[in-house]
């Protein structure tokens, strides 16, 4: 491989809505995991006080519930946005069962996970928005969100009068009562933790190896794309991104 300088251009990939969704999800998931573990196994921090004067555990639960509602609102809005947002936010990115999607997944597996040398170095192999494997992992996370919402709100439904939580009351008999539902809720929390570790690592990996501003893209919205990738547009002085 010959050393060569490439021209990179700034491309606006993640719209404000997508970035806002990302950080809402990141923060609320973090809060939910922390409060969730406190609820599962509370530390015995207060002793020798009257119950009348203390409510800290009640507040932890309240934070958990409120954050859950924020997160579900964010996920519902993101679902809507996948139909009206730009092409990097579209639902089509998350379903890789096309020829292009599957070949992209193979490429990502070979180059990024198995670390094989990239011999041909085709431009089209490098995704501008999500690569298909990453997007597919977000689809699985979305399904996990649905599982987590439905088990969580189902556990909340007997003591709630809100129609939204009551919508999930059928989940309790489906799994055979509160005990298994609570258990599923607990186990899938661990899957979120594992996801966060892998997700953050791979973002750092891509930033390090490719140098296209992967980390900052979720803050600024811009990624850097090689200039070969652009079509010369008929409109003067403007360049349009080619459709691979």
């Amino acid at each position, binding site marked *: *491989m010959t050393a060569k300088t490439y021209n990179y251009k700034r491309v606006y990939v993640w719209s404000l809505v997508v970035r806002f969704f990302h950080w809402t999800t990141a923060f609320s998931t973090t809060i939910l995991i922390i409060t969730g573990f406190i609820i599962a196994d509370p530390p015995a921090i207060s002793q020798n006080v009257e119950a009348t004067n203390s409510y*800290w*555990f009640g507040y932890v639960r309240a934070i958990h519930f409120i954050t859950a509602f924020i997160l579900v609102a964010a996920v519902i809005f993101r679902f809507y946005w996948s139909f009206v947002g730009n092409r990097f936010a579209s639902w089509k990115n998350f379903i890789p069962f096309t020829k292009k999607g599957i070949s992209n997944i193979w490429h990502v597996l070979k180059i990024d996970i198995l670390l094989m*040398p990239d011999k041909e170095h085709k431009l089209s192999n490098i995704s501008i928005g999500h690569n298909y494997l990453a997007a597919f992992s977000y689809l699985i996370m979305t399904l996990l969100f649905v599982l987590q919402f439905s088990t969580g709100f189902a556990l909340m439904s007997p003591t709630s009068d809100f129609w939204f939580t009551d919508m999930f009351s059928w989940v309790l008999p489906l799994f055979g009562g509160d005990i*298994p539902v609570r258990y599923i809720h607990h186990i899938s929390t661990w899957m979120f933790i594992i996801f966060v570790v892998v997700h953050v690592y791979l973002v750092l990996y891509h930033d390090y190896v490719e*140098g296209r501003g992967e980390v900052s893209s979720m803050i600024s919205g811009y990624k850097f794309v090689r200039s070969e990738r652009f079509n010369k547009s008929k409109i003067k002085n403007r360049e349009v991104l080619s459709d691979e």
Partner: protein
Amino acid sequence: MRKTVKKEDTYYENIIKKGYSRRDFMKFATVMTAFMGYESSVVSQVVKALETKKRIPVIWEHFQECTGCTESFIRSDHPLVSDLILDTISLDYTDTLMAASGHNAEAAKQESMKENYGKYILIVEGAIPTKNEGYCTIAGRSAIEVLKESAAGAAAILAFGSCSSWGGVQAAHPNPTGSVPVDEIIKNKPIIRVPGCPPISEVMTGVVVHYATFGRLPDLDSMGRPKQFYGKRVHDSCYRRPNFDAGLFAETYDSEEAKKGYCLYKAGCRGPVTYNACGSMEWNNGVSFPIKSGYPCIGCSENNFWDNGPFTERLTNVPGMGIEATADKIGKIVLGATAVGVAGHAILTNLAKKKELKAAHKMAIKNKKRIKE
């Protein structure tokens, strides 16, 4: 035992005949209304119904059980409650409590079932074995056969206790007799689950009186339990709940905190996942219930409660992963493995992509030099 009772009599007539006063009857109606969860204005409706409506016959079948439900039932809170149902009014057949035995008892049952076809309530205590019909035979007939016969003419079936509701201890892993709850055998009848090991006796009386008063079965929740009694978790009516919200927990049984009555959540209490009326109705004339006596709820009215891990631990074991494999232990191991994998990948990246990274670095250094100051 029912020779003194003419089947045309109303509940009220039977009570008066038995020697109770009108005042006792009014007390009973008021207690039942309260148990059923209605406001005091409904008392007159209950009184009117018991005065005018014909008694509803009850047939009680026993299968794979320990008779604990019957024991609980005869220790009913209000003496009139058990008296009314047991001696005077409704119970036409129950092999544990009835005076008759053998052929006479069977004949009484057959007679009652024939006379009241489509009208009687069938109470089932105990699970039904399916692997071998010989596991539970009564008067030489298998449990399935007896159940199917009694259920055929029943207006409704009351699955009394955790065994007939969910399967109970004999359906716990590995379920050697292939025990199943009533609803897996009988599909075409309304089945009311009254789970508990044992359940609170007033619940059953409450269901019978509800049926007599309103002519229909009480509202059931999504798991087939009467909402009046199983609408809330034990946790929601527990007198120790303020300690839970305040974060005051007892870690061990004989600790200072346990003596102070702190919440038993960390001792594995199943109150937060168990639907029952223990916290509000309590047991043995309202004397106590497990949590009040200092022991955590074991969730005896929940489905499959025997197999849901150690009673005294919050987190149940992961099935099929060994005795000590809780979700948190497995989670920590997987997290550790992921961290090792990620670190390994990071190291391998630097080795495998050495050329690319070096070339990029070289180019970048070159570019730096080219910058005009």
